[in-house]
């Protein structure tokens, strides 16, 4: 099963943590991978059940673009946010789903993030091609071994 849960405590009140996830002016500041940034103009957030969101992360070095988007499934401010997550063109029903649960924890907030993917049905053609590639790779290995032995 392609799923996992992350739990993290933040030293901020629950409404601030909620806003960091749902305010388009804040999301870009932190929602990117290492070596990338998310331009504000790429961010659209319609935070309501059925509403869409999107943003694009840009690789700092190469400039190549990684659009991300999805649909909100549940919006219960400030304790629960459920949304699909993938490429904006993906069918939301097939996209992975992120579930955020927020709870006050002392003066801070405990965030639980659960990410689950819809399982792919394997394509029989994939298996045939993989087997073919595996054979080719074995022969590549022999070829390289032979070349090394002849030196």
């Amino acid at each position, binding site marked *: 099963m392609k799923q996992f849960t992350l739990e993290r405590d933040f030293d*901020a009140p629950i409404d601030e943590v909620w806003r*960091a996830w749902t305010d388009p002016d804040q999301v870009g500041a*932190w929602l990117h*991978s290492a070596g990338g940034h998310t331009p504000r103009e790429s961010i659209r957030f319609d935070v309501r059940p059925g509403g869409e969101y999107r943003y694009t992360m840009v690789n700092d070095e*190469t400039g190549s673009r990684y659009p991300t988007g999805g649909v909100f499934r549940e919006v219960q401010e400030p304790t629960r946010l459920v949304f699909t997550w993938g490429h904006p063109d993906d069918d939301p029903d097939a996209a992975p789903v992120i579930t955020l649960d927020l709870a006050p924890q002392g*003066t801070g907030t405990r965030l639980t993030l659960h990410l689950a993917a819809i399982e792919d049905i394997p394509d029989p*053609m*994939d298996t045939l091609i993989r087997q073919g590639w*595996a054979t080719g790779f074995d*022969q590549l290995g022999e070829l390289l071994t032979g070349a090394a032995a002849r030196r």
Partner: protein
Amino acid sequence: MVRATDELSRVFAALADPTRRDILSRLREHGPVTVGQLAAAYAMSRPAVSQHLRVLADAGLIVQDARAQWRECRLTDDGLTNARDWIERNRADWSQRLDNLATHLAGPATTAKTPAPPTNRRAR
């Protein structure tokens, strides 16, 4: 031996182009994509992208799945490896983002963040 040499040449030809290397890297890091998504990412025409994909597919490096998405062809691609890799990759990515979030929440850029005096706990 001739067949293996041909395959080797196709792999090297496929990897000789920086855009094709970037496409492979993108598939590895971010999962399957369509031609349209690649065309947008590289600001390239679809025929130009398709040409790159054909070279990569002929070399046996990528394959198209049931949903017309291109994905990396892996040597030992059983379901368990797939799931494990997916989990590792995404867990690491999201853990990094939550680190970023902690920094963002703590930093001066956060609006109206003044430390609450100990006697002034907010009731929730």
